């Protein structure tokens, strides 16, 4: 055959002008800040924030001192009030016991069927009650409430 069949076939040829050159050189990452800049920025931000923190810190310290002083000032008064209420309640308890055990044979107020709790104390000495004795006349809910507070604290 003199003429070869010239069929236009699609061939995978290089683009016209040849391939562009392949970039093989290293591309390091872009550095926004240098090392010194980073340290300087860190120091600067720390100093600014220390200043701002101290502004609030002073206010809070003053507040804490005020609260602590106030609590210390009223603490004795609160203790005294609690003791007053305690003694008043002891009196009420004694009266309630006298009222309750009026008809029980052999019972004397403040003793266990006539037998004094502490034999060698004078009969009118104050014998501080235990928790159960203090709450002997109370409703169970109030008693458990107090016991729960003790457990909580």
């Amino acid at each position: 055959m003199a003429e070869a069949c010239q069929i236009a076939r699609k061939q995978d040829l290089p683009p016209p002008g040849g391939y562009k050159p392949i970039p093989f050189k290293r591309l390091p990452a872009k550095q926004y800040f240098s090392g010194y800049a980073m340290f300087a920025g860190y120091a600067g931000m720390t100093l600014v924030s220390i200043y701002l923190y101290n502004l609030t810190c002073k206010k809070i310290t003053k507040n804490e001192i005020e609260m602590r002083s106030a609590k210390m000032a009223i603490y004795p008064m609160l203790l005294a009030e609690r003791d007053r209420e305690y003694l008043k309640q002891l009196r009420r308890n004694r009266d309630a016991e006298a009222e309750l055990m009026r008809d029980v044979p052999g019972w004397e107020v403040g003793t266990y069927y006539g037998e004094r709790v502490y034999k060698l104390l004078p009969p009118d000495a104050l014998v501080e009650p235990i928790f159960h004795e203090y709450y002997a006349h109370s409703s169970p809910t109030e008693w458990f409430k107090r016991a729960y507070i003790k457990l909580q604290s």
Partner: protein
Amino acid sequence: MSISPYFRSPFTDITGGMISHQMLGNCQKQEMRYMDCLEAYGLDRGRVKCGELFDDFHECQTKTKQFKRFVAIRKERERQIAEGKLKGDEKFLSPRVDSF
């Protein structure tokens, strides 16, 4: 009651009782009186002579009589409530919760 072993030696001291009411406690006075009495009379005579002191000390330590008082009072109150003698507001007398 046994206070101390018959022959005291370092071997018996190893497991000796080192707790007492003297440092922190409500029973300091009672314990001191009882121990002084025992030291004066010894254990055998002291058992008889210091009986009352021992009872006070024992009561302070275990608070049995005070607890028995509580039991008796409570029982009586509950009996009276069940009987119907106490009703309504008179049933109980509760202290203020922060007063003890």
